[in-house]
Each structure stands twice: as C-alpha cells, then as structure tokens.
C-alpha cells in the first residue's frame, strides 16, 4: 500500500469529505510525526507503535573500500517499535 492508496481508502469511507481535505489529513498525520521526531520528541500510538529518536555517538569509521579511517560525527536516527496489539495481530493472536 502506498500513500495514494491510503488516501483513496479514507476518501471512500468518508464521502462527505473533499478529496483535497483527505489528502491534507493524511499528509498532516505523517508531517506531525516527522516534525515531532525532528524536535527529538516521541510519538506513541498505542496498539500501533511508537516512533522515537536514538542518539548515535561520534565514532571513528572506516571507508570499506580504501580502509582509510574517517571521523563520523554524533547523529540522531529515527526508531520505530511495534505496539503490542499490532505485534500480536501479525502473529494471528
């Protein structure tokens, strides 16, 4: 399923809404989650999962081709943990 298919499904279920509003609704949800993570916040959606940000410390990396060492700066990476309900549903419980 891709974004446009998700929008389509929501539009079909909500014939009283304009297509452009449905698009805005779906886009707003994903933008809010991304914005929260960019601020370093967590987004917890019970039953579905939780988005959070993890810190990766600075380290000395290595160019795998040349073997040369390169400093890698500290950075933050997005992380998702599946919620219990969805995890159970994936396994037919």
């Amino acid at each position, binding site marked *: 399923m891709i974004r446009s298919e998700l929008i389509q499904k929501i539009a079909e279920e909500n014939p009283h809404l304009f297509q452009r509003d449905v698009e*805005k609704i779906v886009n707003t949800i994903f933008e809010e989650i991304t914005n929260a993570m960019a601020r370093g916040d967590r*987004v917890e959606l019970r039953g579905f999962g939780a988005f959070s940000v993890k810190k990766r410390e600075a380290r000395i990396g290595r160019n795998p081709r040349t073997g040369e060492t390169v400093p890698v700066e500290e950075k933050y*990476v997005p992380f998702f943990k599946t919620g219990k309900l969805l995890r159970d549903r994936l396994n037919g419980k």
Partner: protein
Amino acid sequence: MSDKTLTRMDLSEAIFREVGLSRNDSSQLVESVLQHMSDALVSGEQVKISSFGTFSVREKSARVGRNPKTGEEVPINPRRVLTFRPSHLMKDRVASGPEG
C-alpha cells in the same frame, strides 16, 4: 532532547487545526488511518509512505533462544515482525538532533 511524547490526541489536534474538522471527526480519521495501515501489514502487505518511510513485515524462522538470567534454553517459534525503514528525508530531518 525535549523528551515530550505526542499521542493520537496531538495528531487529531493538528488535523483540527490544519483542516478545520471537528475534534471528534479528526480523532476518528487518525484512527482509521492507523487501522488501514495495520490491516495492510497484517495481510502481509508493505506500507510505503513517500518521504516518510516504509513499513514491512518480515518472517523470522524458529530458533533456540536462551533465558539470559537462568541460561535455560527456550524454543522461539517462527513469527512475523514489523520493521520500519525511515525515508532519506526523515533521516535528514532527524539527524542533526533537537538543537539542529
């Protein structure tokens, strides 16, 4: 790190603000978006949201695990796990951290 946690309520508040739907309708729409994504994943489908990321279901085969406390061997049944791969856009926006 600001360490704030957003919930469904914050997402529906954003819809209320951005689209002008009632709070009640907004929260129902958040719910149906999550429901459709979950249903697709449970049916084994991948969910690919451009510029956000991709959720995919992976099959894990059975293996023998070990209780780290007792050292006891326990069988781990085959199972399906969900993985999320963030888009480049999300990675770039998150990378610099809360101050960036």
